[in-house]
């Protein structure tokens, strides 16, 4: 029997991510990792793309991982874990290892997934490995000091899309990776956020038990890059969900399903005004950018509702 998804039961399971890691105070990534690993009862093996999570949890001679863990390079977290999975199954076939229901998980940030690791990820899921790849999306290369990635939202200030006289922050809309992964026609694709922990945990369970490759995209706040106070992490994450910037949905065997519908869809300003990276958008000369952003979000939301049969 799987552990019931209730905090009172989950806290009795061994903690898989030890404290003492050097992620910033109020980091969203470690919340995502803790919640996801708490939802899995089976043994896990993890590969990690280069990024904040990898760097901060394994500063030599310390590691925060109480599960088998491997780092290879920035771009190949997905192919690394696919290789680990294939090697394990081969050893089991040869009778050299005991057969257990091991879950293979790859973690990467948006830089290591949307940009640098996209080819490796696409290949790994196409080959049909039984693995879950998780992207914790904080919308920029935060580890190296907030450079834009293809996940950075439109209008956001980063050090390589600086808001100033020449440009008002990032000028392109973000890449929709969840939909790209859904287009691979793999058994499970999900988009989640740690502010809805039960939804995140249920999706994690479905993903690791789908019998094939699975992908999850999880919104993860970075208070250094997003520019907000450390205790607002989950509140602002939830605003991202309630403004439909980050809708929560899943695609299970080609079946699209909305897992959370905001009672009232909030205007995007509610999310923008809480973060320093969007502060310049509220200047009179930039207000039209907020309208543009709202239009884009509305368009994508309508499209999603239609796909999920909710329109």
């Amino acid at each position, binding site marked *: 029997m799987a552990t019931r998804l209730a905090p009172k039961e989950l806290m009795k399971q061994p903690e898989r991510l030890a404290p*003492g*890691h050097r992620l910033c105070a109020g980091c969203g990534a470690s919340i995502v990792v803790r919640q996801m690993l708490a939802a899995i009862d089976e043994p896990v093996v993890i590969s990690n793309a280069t990024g904040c999570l990898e760097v901060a949890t394994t500063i030599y001679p310390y590691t925060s991982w109480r599960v088998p863990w491997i780092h290879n390079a920035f771009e190949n977290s997905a192919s690394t874990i696919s290789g680990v999975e294939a090697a394990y199954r081969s050893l089991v076939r040869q009778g050299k290892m005991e057969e257990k229901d091991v879950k293979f998980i790859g973690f990467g940030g948006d830089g290591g997934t949307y940009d640098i690791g996209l080819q490796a990820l696409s290949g790994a899921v196409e080959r049909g490995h039984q693995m879950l790849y998780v992207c914790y999306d904080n919308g920029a290369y935060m580890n190296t000091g907030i450079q834009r990635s293809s996940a950075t939202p439109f209008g956001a200030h980063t050090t390589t899309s600086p808001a100033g006289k020449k440009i008002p922050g990032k000028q392109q809309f973000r890449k929709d990776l969840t939909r790209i992964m859904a287009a691979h026609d793999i058994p499970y694709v999900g988009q989640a956020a740690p502010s809805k922990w039960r939804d995140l945990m249920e999706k994690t369970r479905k993903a690791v038990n789908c019998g094939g490759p699975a992908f999850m995209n999880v919104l993860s706040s970075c208070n250094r890059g997003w520019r907000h106070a450390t205790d607002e992490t989950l509140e602002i994450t939830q605003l991202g969900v309630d403004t439909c910037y980050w809708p929560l949905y899943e695609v299970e065997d080609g079946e699209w399903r909305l897992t959370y519908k905001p009672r009232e869809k909030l205007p995007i300003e509610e999310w923008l005004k809480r973060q320093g990276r969007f502060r310049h958008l509220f200047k009179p000369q930039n207000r039209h950018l907020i309208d543009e952003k709202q239009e884009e979000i509305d368009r994508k939301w309508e499209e999603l509702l239609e796909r999920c049969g909710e329109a």
Partner: protein
Amino acid sequence: MSELKGWKEIPIGGMILDAGNSVEYDTGDWRAFRPVFGEAECINCFQCWLNCPDSSILVDTEKEEMVGFDLKHCKGCGICASVCPVNAKVKKKAEDELEKDEASLCIRIIEEGKLQEAGYE
């Protein structure tokens, strides 16, 4: 920090063989704010445990109780207080009555230098 090892003493590939040994590393000294636990108010919902980025909520798994904070590792982000339903209730009440009842908060966040002022230690 332990004494540096010679190259012959380091495991092949620079692997770290002691899983989870980062507990030996203090991150508590980063803290500018400290969470203070109001035991009497706690309803043991474990929302703080569930959302702590630093695995720093101490729980008694037998009694199913929240015990306090691991101050050796807690970085003082304040997420525990922000997700606490008891705190939310108190703050809601304060909004209505224009008076904040600090003492009935389950988790208080206090500046490290002002603990004495607030009546602690």
